[in-house]
């Protein structure tokens, strides 16, 4: 069973207002992230995974409205004042972005980045303590102390990402959200960074929410996985179990379309992800789903708990008593409009 949750997300909704209508980027999502656990959040671009990550940290852009609960230490972060949230961010909740260069100040030495961060949150530290803490965290990321006084441009891409991770970890946060942290890196460096991230639970006891579009990364680095489609969690469970035997057709199709060295034939999912202003009614995946039934186009699926503690949002797993007569017949599918084909 999952360890004590550090963060519990309950029924979270995040909507954006746009000229074309309201985008429901996160729509009634519930999730727990346990102490020292790595949870992978996967889905195609535009499924709302980054918005969910930011929503958990209260880092939403202007124009976004959120409702529901993000419980941290017994308090709801949704609706919490900006000042109070800022105090939590850093020592409690950290964030790692995709492009490290844009997050480091080019005219500040690495040392000064650490001084600024530590002084902000732990004003009592002496400069000796400050240096020790920083060098120790950097060292564990493989950055030698001889480079402490260098500037960001003197480092390679992978080193910068290590520095960003160290900068987040130096405050010993309980939860770290990493949004596509390896996307702009080369394969070998990507694997190095994943090694570091998946070791966090041992070395720092930090819980990690790892947001990625690459299922291979989740399989290798995560304990649990949540698969997101059109603003909702389609399936969530132990990563090994989910990958060995996906319960939701979307998870299955996404796995089949991932190209790895083991892939024997190419596969793709027909159509493309829906826009979140006017998503398909009932099950949002039904127009692309090879297993769609009549009920899938008529009624909203209801979250089911299946074996091994897994959650899945799909009529294939019931509840049977709510499926109308004839509802399990295969759905007569209109050809997916070519214009929707990716």
């Amino acid at each position: 069973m999952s360890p004590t949750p550090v963060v519990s997300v309950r029924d979270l909704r995040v909507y954006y207002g746009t000229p074309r209508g309201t985008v429901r980027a996160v729509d009634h999502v519930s999730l727990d992230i346990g102490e020292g656990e790595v949870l992978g959040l996967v889905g195609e671009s535009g499924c709302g995974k980054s918005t969910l990550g930011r929503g958990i940290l209260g880092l939403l852009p202007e124009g976004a409205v959120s409702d529901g609960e993000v419980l941290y230490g017994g308090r709801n972060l949704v609706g919490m004042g900006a000042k109070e949230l800022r105090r939590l961010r850093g020592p409690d909740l950290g964030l790692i972005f995709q492009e490290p260069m844009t997050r480091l100040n080019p005219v500040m030495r690495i040392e000064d980045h650490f001084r600024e961060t530590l002084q902000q949150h732990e004003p009592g530290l002496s400069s000796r303590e400050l240096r020790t803490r920083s060098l120790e965290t950097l060292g564990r990321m493989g950055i030698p102390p001889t480079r402490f006084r260098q500037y960001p441009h003197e480092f390679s891409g992978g080193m910068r990402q290590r520095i960003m991770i160290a900068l987040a970890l130096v405050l010993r946060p309980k939860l770290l959200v990493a949004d596509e942290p390896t996307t702009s890196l080369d394969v070998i460096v990507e694997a190095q960074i994943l090694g570091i991230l998946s070791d966090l639970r041992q070395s720092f006891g930090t819980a990690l929410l790892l947001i990625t579009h690459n299922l291979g990364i989740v399989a290798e680095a995560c304990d649990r996985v949540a698969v997101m489609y059109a603003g909702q969690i389609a399936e969530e469970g132990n990563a090994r179990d989910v990958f060995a035997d996906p319960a939701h057709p979307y998870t299955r199709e996404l796995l089949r379309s991932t190209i790895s060295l083991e892939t024997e034939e190419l596969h793709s999912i027909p159509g493309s992800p829906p826009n979140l202003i006017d998503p398909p009614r009932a099950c949002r995946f039904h127009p692309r789903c090879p297993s769609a039934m009549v009920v899938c186009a008529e009624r909203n699926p209801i979250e089911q708990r299946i074996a091994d503690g897994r959650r899945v949002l799909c009529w294939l797993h019931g509840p049977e008593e709510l499926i109308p007569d004839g509802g399990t017949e295969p759905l007569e599918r209109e050809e997916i409009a070519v214009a929707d084909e990716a």
Partner: protein
Amino acid sequence: MQTKPEAVTNGRPLVSVRGLKTYYSLRGSFGQRLLGREAGSVKAVDDVSIELHRGEVLGLVGESGSGKTTLGRTILGLVPATEGSIEFDGREITRMSERELRGLRREMQIVFQDPHASLNPAMTIAQLVEHPLQIHGIGSRAERQSRVAEALSTVGLDPPEQFLDKYPSDLSGGQKQRVVIARAIILNPSLLVADEPVSMLDMSVRAKILELMMYLKRELNLAFLYITHDLATAKFFCDRIAILYLGRIVEIGPSEAIYAEPRHPYTKALLRAIPDPDPRRTVPRDLPPGEVPDAARPPLGCHFHPRCAAAFEVCGWETRDLRELLERRWAFQAQERYEAEQALMGDLAALDEPATRIRLKAGQGRTAAEMAALLEEVRRDAPDERFWTGVKRIAADGEHLDVEWFDPVVPRPLAAGATTVECHLYDEAALAEAERRRSETESLRGE
């Protein structure tokens, strides 16, 4: 779309590259320019030879800084070659004028990584795809329009009428990449350089674009240079694969051989690093440390040696490797310990200049004997570190420590099984030389 006549070439390659070098000169600082000093150059492509036949796909695979993109662009004449020859369909292009090249560009087209950036957002799909025909003054308006429709159907944007009046912003990423490809094939080229064409697309779409490219190869007998960092997609698409590292082809051969029996340690590392959704796999730990070094100052000998788990006596060990060894040690040490060791070793900046011998001055008030003892300790702590195979001599002289390494041997392409590889592990002469050096140091250490 009219198909290309089957190989009318009696076996002559479509593209033949020999001894190609593309160097970029560095600007250097203001002071250096004032004094008229050369700032040196980056050997982006360093003595590369490849052939590509009609209807064939050659993968150029490597990490950033490997020179794969520069190689593709030099072949298209977009970047001037510094040395060597590129023949396209029997014509030498390295000395062609811009005007001559422009004519030839009908035959060779390029597809970039980012479809959003490749399409002018103010033009309709019809205008975008028709544009190359206008530039080259081909056909009447009606003919051009029918060719646009034909190209769109070929790339799977069918029926074309649904797309003609749309703007790029109306399309998904995959659809945009199809438009880019339609525009690239409308001139009926024989070569397409595809530079990371799927890496910005979602997993669910990548297969579709790869399938489209395979279809074009078959139907139009198109030859591809597929530039990528991803060996997993290359496996599906490429007939042959060249692995690049810092401007050199370190291994080249038929795809099956590269995947079934990779030879070069770098190829093996690239293959191990690819993430796999197999639930039994965990993050690979036995990967090369560090990253691709600065191409302006590549490592001596084999460029890959500092990251190679199999490197040995002849691979080119040098000053910078010592610095890295010490820094890697210090990263994981307690602060007091590191500070003490650093004070003893003095200023490491002397190690930044690539050389196979160096005279280091001990830190203030310390002796070279202490430095030698520290190095001995470093060696005892990690005796399997490949670095030590390359050390010829360490001698203390008062406050100076002399360190000397064996001369680097530069690897040359060698046939190994079905592939050609640049690695001393497959070179009898290099192995024999390493054996000789090993016995030399053993007898020295034995004294």
